[in-house]
């Protein structure tokens, strides 16, 4: 069941488009904002609300990499692995994160606190390597900086 807040947030998004379907990505993000990810049940609820079939909505949901169809940790880290960040050492950050969290890219740390996902260029190439923790962007990240971010983020 969608909460009243979710429902009204989706309906607000719906206002911006001539068709219900057009609001589907926004709607999924509304649900994801509160629940972290999109469960099958949530998918069905959103589909019903927008008069889409489960198949139609999942076809869209599984296309976009920022819609999570599997559970994620309490906080999601997007680690840029695009070219400028690679030149500036994002692989090192990846290794460091793996060591610290015991989880590879795409996995969730055992304590369920962090999921680290690879991300396309975050538009902060002049401060490469860059990463985002939830909605905050961090630039010029070093392994030490990673430790600090993880600390803050927990």
């Amino acid at each position: 069941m969608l909460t009243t807040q979710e429902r009204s947030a989706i309906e607000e998004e719906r206002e911006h488009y001539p068709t219900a379907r057009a609001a589907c990505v926004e709607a999924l993000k509304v649900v994801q904002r509160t629940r972290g990810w999109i469960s099958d049940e949530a998918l069905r609820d959103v589909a019903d609300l927008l008069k889409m079939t489960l198949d139609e909505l999942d076809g869209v949901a599984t296309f976009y990499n920022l819609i999570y169809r599997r559970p994620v940790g309490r906080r999601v880290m997007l680690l840029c692995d695009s070219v400028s960040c690679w030149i500036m050492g994002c692989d090192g950050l990846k290794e460091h994160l793996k060591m610290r969290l015991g989880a590879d890219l795409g996995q969730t740390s055992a304590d369920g606190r962090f999921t680290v996902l690879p991300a396309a260029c975050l538009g902060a190439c002049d401060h490469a390597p860059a990463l985002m923790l939830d909605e905050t962007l961090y630039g010029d990240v070093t392994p030490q900086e990673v430790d600090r971010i993880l600390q803050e983020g927990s």
Partner: protein
Amino acid sequence: MARVVIDGKSYEVDGRRNLLHACLSLKLDLPYFCWHPAMGSVGACRQCAVKQFKDDRDTAGRLVMACMTPAADGTRISIDDPEAKAFRASVIEWLMLNHPHDCPVCDEGGECHLQDMTVMTGHVVRRNRFPKRTYHNQDLGPFLTHEMNRCIQCYRCVRFYRDYAGGRDFDVFGAHDQVYFGRAEDGVLESEFSGNLVEVCPTGVFTDKTLARHYTRKWDLQWAPSICAHCGLGCNTSVAERGGMLRRVMNRVNPEVNGHFLCDRGRFGYERAQRVTEDPEKEKRTPEDSEKKGLSESSGSSGVKRFSEFSGSLCGLLIGIGSPRASMESNFALQTLVGKDHFYSGLSDLDASLVSLILDILRNGPARAASLQDVENADAVFILGEDVTNTAPRLALSLRQSVRQKALERIGKGGIPLWHDAAVREAMQDEHGPLFIATPYATRLDDVATAVWRAAPDDLARLGLAVAHEIDAEAPAVSGFRMPMNSMADALRDARRPIVVCGTSCGSVPLIQAAANVAWALRRQGRAADLCFTVPECNTMGAALLGGGRLGAAFEAEADTVIILENDLYGRAGAAQVDGFLGRVKHVVVLDHLRTRTTSKAHLVLPAATFAESSGTTVNNEGRAQRFFQVLPSREPVMASWRWISEMLVAAGRTGWASLDEVLAAMGDARIRAAAPPAAGQRIPRRPPRYSGRTAMAAHVSVHEAPPPPDPDSPLAFSMEGFSPEAPPPLTPFFWWPGWNSIQAAHKFADGPSGVRLIEPGQRGAFFREVPAPFTPRRGEWWVVPVHHIFGTEEQSAMAPAIVKRSVEPTLALRPEDASDLGVSTGGAVQCMLDERTYRFRVQLRPELPVGVAGLSLMGATKGVGLPCWMALRRA
């Protein structure tokens, strides 16, 4: 017409086509995947690359996708260009990177477009050394097997299922090199056209699950051109057998009828259309009940002997009851045997009056009987009363295309070529119509309707009449009628090729008259309006053309012997009436291949051949005579009904017929004869050139290869000698061409229509003037209309195992208000007395039903109830 130069040679081609289509039409080999003749181009697979040159001085050229390039006048291309060839081989190589290469265990093997194209491009060596991706497969229900690892991501399946057929429970998931085609979760595919994925998918992702139970490679099957026996539309099929077992049904292209697609009833309803030998319990032709009446013999010539013993010698009255599911030839044979005056057409009395009304309307004109192709091209449609998806399924698919016509016209004017499906769909978005649906209950086409209206059949007729009046004031007015669907008359009048769809399923004479009035009114306004009437069975129209007395009259006749042709009378009239009749008649002889309540009351049951075991002609709803051909070699004692009757004639000292041609000659209708050309020159082989095991198959019986069974009834042979691709369309047993082993070979064949239209309209039609009174609900009683089910209503397919799995339990549909008045809810039961019998029905709630109307599933026992009728219902 356009001139194009291909590899230095100049050709005339249809300039409205794309280059790929043009090349294929010229029978040139050019590989492709995502293009489909009925679905157009989207440019996804990139397999059809050719080199295009600006002019004759341009030697460099550039690669283009043939399917995305118009065959414009003056176009110069090369298929053989080395770079084009290298690119095409590269496309196959990419597709093969992840392909499992499991041809030996793949049901597509030997009829696989991917195999064919791989061979055609010459890609033979695997260079990729990296692991392949794998997917999870889904259980999609009783019709289709799903094996995603074989997918080459051509997107044809989603395009067919969603864009073409309107299904919404199937899609594409994921992105990049992880795209998945299937359902969001396992489950039965809802579309009534899902089976077409078997042919649409160029690989072994979607294969026929019914075939898998008795699998045989395409090249090892013996094929015959056939006509679907499972509704009145007469879709063209290819049916296949091996070792005396019917194995599968595939589509056979008839551009004016089914085109490239069948419905699932037609494709999967075949499995009981033959003598069932594996399971003696289910042996349909054992006349066990008749033994009770002291007749044990019924097979072969002894059956005829028994028949002549008691009927040949008797001086009493012999009558015959024909059948709308038997061939023209068998009906005619019976008519000949018993004489015109003693022949009854075998339709229920209601159907007989409805169909003869339809026939009159179509003969009188001026509106023509529309073919499915006409329907597809209609630019406005008005459906009166029919739940098309369930009464004439393939028609629903044509109607789904018709709703695009108006928009297509606009888009075509804007310069987008209509084969350019990707562009067309984007420009079209959700624009559709006009399609108006007026029916007693919701239909599966409502999602594309401009407007829907639910009412009792009489009120639907009033709507139709009122629309006709609005279009043409000459047509009778309907006083006091308030038009529920605005601007409907305008929309129909604005169309150039409007079509009115109606039929027999509501059992309403005024409704059919109303449909005629609308079409005629449009004709009077100068529109090329056509009529599309659905009829219930594969030869209903033929039976009506042949004529014959009413069943009610047969029941009154003082007959001593009755011969009943492929007909269960309990589905045509009330049980008490039929019981009385069959009890009264001294000798009841039934020719059938189904075990029915009627066969159980027979004194003698003669095993008749099914459509797969015999050849003959049926006439579809449009009045098109089409021939079906035997695929299963004859096996004692099964014979075509007309042959049984011929033997009776001979036994009675009259002349019979030795072949189908002789029956046709006796019928004396040159057009019916011309439905398929007669034998000319070498016989057409039913077996593909690579048919194997010819001698080994029966080696356990004899090591000598038996001569092919004779086939006096067709120009086809039970053999592999000869070359079938040159056969004319009505005689083409299967699609195969060197290098083209899959169904995609269809384009190598003549693409002309087949069948002969028997009814052409005159200019005599005069408006029907009678206007029915508004429907008035009754207290405690409901006007119960029949609810048709694609899976279950039609008796010849109803017992096929896959169809059984999809059939629903019969229910009585009620408005929720009515149900609660009766004190029942969904799943509860109601009962009513009919014909002195008490019936019990499970209740289903359908809020859209009009006040005072209920719907009853038309299956099995409810067929003889005489729907539509008033029923007093109470809680059971």
